[in-house]
């Protein structure tokens, strides 16, 4: 069961009307009646079904591909191979500078395969079953090559090289250093050393898999791609140059998307294959990815090692600095990477006051599925790391975990706080939020509960996971890893119009996957125009034809509440002004005299003089004769642009994100010392994302992030064997938590409005993996009574806990303390 409470520290910056209320979602009606429109629900006459031929080898040379047997099968429309792709397209644009920048990545494998499940050919046939039959008939002759699976081996002299053109497996390396690290260590009273920490590989496994319906019009040379890609702005700049066409030739259409969590950003290679086949076969081509395909090939979360970490600590428990070597495993291709190499630095210091940081970031490729954004992208790994440091320092030096946090947290008085690398934490009271979560979970009774559990033979553990959810990217940060890139800032678009019968129609550039944009946008519009949410119609999904998108349009990186709603507010303010202007023309009064309320534009001190929205909408649209000047169009388009500077490339310094939501999670678990099996028995989470337009929707996001974290900590892992086979290729072995795996949950919220955003809102939703941090901490706490193993992995299935119980010294050996 869940219980909820809310504390509001400050009143929001906008009037509370619909905003601030948990109004029911506009999306729900169609979705609970099975009337949603997901990409796979869309059909076209004569469309063919695409099935990919995938590599069974993690690393092999493709000697030959024979599609003839497939083409002979009745009902097969055609095929596509890597050789054709290499002729018809150019390699995808690479975000990386050298050496990663030389990588050649195509829609299908060309010459070589580099991970199990990599598409090597595609077949299109009359039915889904036939397409798979035909795919199984395609003969591919492979010459297997040695594989590298462990990132720590990828740079060895004898390691097999995935991309010869890159001259090795290194794709990016950079030293990120701020403050005076050497001095911090010189002045430290204690230095805690941790030889190895590992953040495991998993992803959010949205329930709907990737896919598209690609239609090609020979007359216009344009493709219409009905898909669930969640970042069309990115897909189009990847696809258009590769396909040697202008961006206008690629129309993206999305409506309902069955979850994304970042995992649906990098489907562009498969989309290109669909487009090429739609043109080649001159018929609509439909591709639906299946679960095993997705697990083997799509958007794994970055696996990261933290090696030779050292933390400088003063006698009073103040943590003054850390240095570490982060080794990031990008998998086989750099689809969105190496952006993970900079995104972490949005939260370089976590929630703490560390002023002296040195992090050597190295990214390598391995024979595993490509990594791409995944809920908490790159920051989650780093925040888990900073939380591990706090808990390990506390345990090894004998400090109280709560006190260490309160002492080292950035303090409310410091807000807005500039971090050592120039990021600005906009607002928040971290210590107060910690007190709140401790109260929710009954921290004062933990020791009693521990004793009671011990009487039942169980080891009880309590853990805290404090984490940040940085939202609204400054894409200028991409220049920190590749100075030649010409991206900076961010934007989002909305159009709002008053239509002929008085309806308000809103279109967005975003591609929601459950984030309820239709509802929250309507709430903002209704408050500004003084009308009911029911007359505000927000178009579902995204369509390039709406002219309501910009280069960064999409739904990713916790930003809608800032960029999306910022655009909605901007456009609605413009429309409101047009409506007042028009009303003032009709009433022959100054514009300032007009107010918008109760669905009317009326003279503020004479409510008799009122025009219904219908009348206003009709004038420019249908009844415009006799006006001395042109009536305003009742139609507004606004591009929201967050206030960003281009970061300093030399110092790697600057504000990389506009807002910093905060979550603190706390959990209590019980370990069975005989088996290593453990159960979450109590859980609480506090969220502060500034002004909440719709509290229930915000709470829903917190719950979702919590569930993902629990899954990642306990069950979910993309584990490969030494030979490069994925051992968890579907839900048989990749266990996703279900109802019975969920602990009781208490949530609470604090509202610290952002001073930097139009509505005082902050981006939120990703959640920063707070639960992973909390569960690692709680396990370490529980194990104190059984050998005192240190938790050095983010993923702790039963067998790993059993290892820690039976061989605690192996884990302890990774930690060393030196005192002055």
């Amino acid at each position, binding site marked *: 069961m869940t219980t909820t409470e809310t504390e509001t520290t400050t009143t929001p910056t906008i009037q509370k009307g619909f905003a601030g209320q948990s109004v029911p979602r506009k999306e729900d009606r169609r979705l609970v009646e*099975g009337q949603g429109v997901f990409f796979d629900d869309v059909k076209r006459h004569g469309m063919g079904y695409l099935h990919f031929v995938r590599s069974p080898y993690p690393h092999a040379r493709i000697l030959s591909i024979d599609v003839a047997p497939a083409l002979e099968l009745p009902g097969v429309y055609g095929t596509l191979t890597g050789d054709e792709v290499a002729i018809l397209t150019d390699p995808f644009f690479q975000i990386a500078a050298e050496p990663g920048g030389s990588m050649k990545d195509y829609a299908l494998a060309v010459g070589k395969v580099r991970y199990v499940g990599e598409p090597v050919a595609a077949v299109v046939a009359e039915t889904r079953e036939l397409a798979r039959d035909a795919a199984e008939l395609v003969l591919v002759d492979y010459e297997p090559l040695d594989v590298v699976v462990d990132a720590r081996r990828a740079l060895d002299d004898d390691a097999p090289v995935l991309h010869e053109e890159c001259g090795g497996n290194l794709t990016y390396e950079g030293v990120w250093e701020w403050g005076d690290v050497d001095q911090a260590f010189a002045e430290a009273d204690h230095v805690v050393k941790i030889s190895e920490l590992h953040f495991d590989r998993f992803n*959010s496994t949205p329930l709907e898999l990737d896919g598209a319906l690609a239609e090609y019009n020979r007359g216009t040379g344009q493709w219409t791609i009905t898909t669930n890609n969640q970042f069309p702005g990115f897909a189009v700049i990847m696809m258009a140059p590769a396909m040697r066409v202008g961006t206008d030739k690629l129309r993206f259409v999305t409506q309902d998307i069955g979850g994304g969590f970042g995992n649906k950003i990098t489907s562009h290679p498969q989309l290109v294959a669909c487009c090429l086949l739609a043109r080649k076969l001159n018929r609509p081509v439909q591709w639906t990815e299946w679960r095993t395909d997705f697990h083997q090939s799509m958007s794994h979360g970055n696996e990261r090692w933290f090696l030779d970490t050292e933390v400088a600590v003063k006698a009073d428990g103040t943590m003054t600095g850390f240095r570490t070597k982060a080794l990031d495993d990008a998998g086989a291709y750099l689809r969105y990477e190496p952006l993970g190499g900079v995104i972490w630095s949005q939260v370089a210091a976590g929630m703490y006051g560390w002023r002296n940081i040195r992090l050597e970031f190295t990214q390598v490729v391995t024979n595993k599925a490509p990594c791409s954004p995944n809920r908490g992208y790159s920051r989650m790994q780093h925040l888990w790391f900073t939380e591990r440091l706090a808990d390990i320092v506390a345990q090894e030096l004998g400090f109280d975990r709560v006190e260490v946090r309160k002492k080292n947290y950035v303090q409310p008085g410091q807000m807005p706080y500039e971090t050592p690398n120039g990021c600005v934490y906009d607002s928040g009271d971290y210590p107060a939020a910690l007190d709140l979560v401790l109260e929710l979970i009954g921290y004062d009774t933990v020791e009693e509960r521990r004793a009671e559990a011990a009487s039942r033979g169980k080891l009880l553990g309590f853990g805290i996971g404090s984490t940040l959810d940085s939202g609204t990217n400054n894409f200028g940060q991409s220049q920190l890893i590749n100075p030649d890139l010409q991206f900076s800032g961010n934007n989002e678009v909305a159009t709002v119009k008053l239509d002929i019968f008085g309806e308000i129609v809103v279109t967005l550039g975003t591609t929601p996957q459950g984030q309820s944009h239709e509802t929250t946008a309507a709430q903002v519009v209704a408050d500004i125009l003084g009308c009911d949410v029911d007359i505000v119609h927000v178009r579902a999904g995204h369509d390039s034809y709406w002219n309501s998108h910009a280069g960064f349009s999409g739904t990713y990186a916790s930003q809608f509440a800032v960029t999306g709603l910022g655009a909605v507010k901007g456009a609605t303010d413009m429309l409101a002004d047009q409506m007042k202007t028009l009303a003032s023309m009709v009433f022959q009064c100054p514009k300032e005299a007009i107010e918008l309320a109760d669905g009317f534009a009326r003279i503020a001190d004479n409510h008799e003089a009122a025009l219904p929205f219908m009348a206003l909408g009709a004038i420019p649209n249908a009844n415009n004769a006799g006006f001395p000047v042109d009536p305003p169009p009742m139609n507004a388009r606004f591009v929201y642009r967050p206030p960003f500077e281009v970061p300093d490339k030399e110092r790697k310094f600057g504000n990389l994100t506009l807002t910093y939501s905060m979550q603190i999670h706390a959990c209590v678990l019980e370990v069975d010392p005989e088996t290593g099996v453990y159960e979450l028995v109590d859980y609480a989470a506090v969220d502060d994302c500034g002004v909440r337009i719709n509290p229930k929707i915000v709470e829903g996001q917190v719950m979702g992030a919590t569930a993902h974290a629990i899954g990642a900590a306990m069950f979910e892992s993309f584990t490969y064997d030494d030979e490069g086979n994925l051992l968890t290729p579907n839900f048989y072995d990749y266990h996703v938590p279900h109802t019975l795996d969920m602990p009781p949950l208490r949530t609470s919220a604090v509202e610290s409005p952002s001073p930097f955003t139009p509505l005082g809102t902050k981006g939120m939703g990703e959640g920063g993996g707070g639960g992973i941090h909390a569960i690692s901490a709680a396990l370490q706490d529980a194990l104190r009574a059984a050998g005192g193993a240190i938790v050095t992995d983010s993923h702790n299935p039963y067998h790993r806990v059993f290892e820690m119980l039976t061989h605690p010294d192996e884990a302890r050996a990774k930690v060393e303390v030196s005192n002055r």
Partner: protein
Amino acid sequence: MTPTTSLFVKVSVNGEEYEREVPARRLLVHFIRDDLDLTGTHIGCDTGSCGACTVHLDGVPVKSCSVLAAQADGAEITTIEGLAGEEQTPLQRSFSEHHALQCGYCTPGMLMSATALLEQNPTPTEDEVKIALQGNICRCTGYWNIVEAVVAAGKGSA
């Protein structure tokens, strides 16, 4: 009797009779989505694990990805499209009121499983709901609001 790779299947779906010739290998879920164009029933895995494809087969919730269309010959099937008449059911309304859905992809399967539970047990406890929904994966909500919505709908109808 000789085995065949194609056969006629007669089913009643949401009260409507359908007769189609289908390949013996076609799964019920593809038959419902692709042959009958009832796309409210979804697919989220390929191992019979996620429950997004849950429908009622002769009144019993089953995973339509783990049944051949041929096996359903002569059966009465209810899909998500068959739940609401003019009005939504109290359970559907409860899902909306309790924010029990985000992306909505698992929702049809959740509703079919929960509806079957409420038919047998009009006022289920929280634990009974969890057991009834264990075969339905949701990646957005963490289940808390879903369980709440079903319990509330039960209380409502009791």
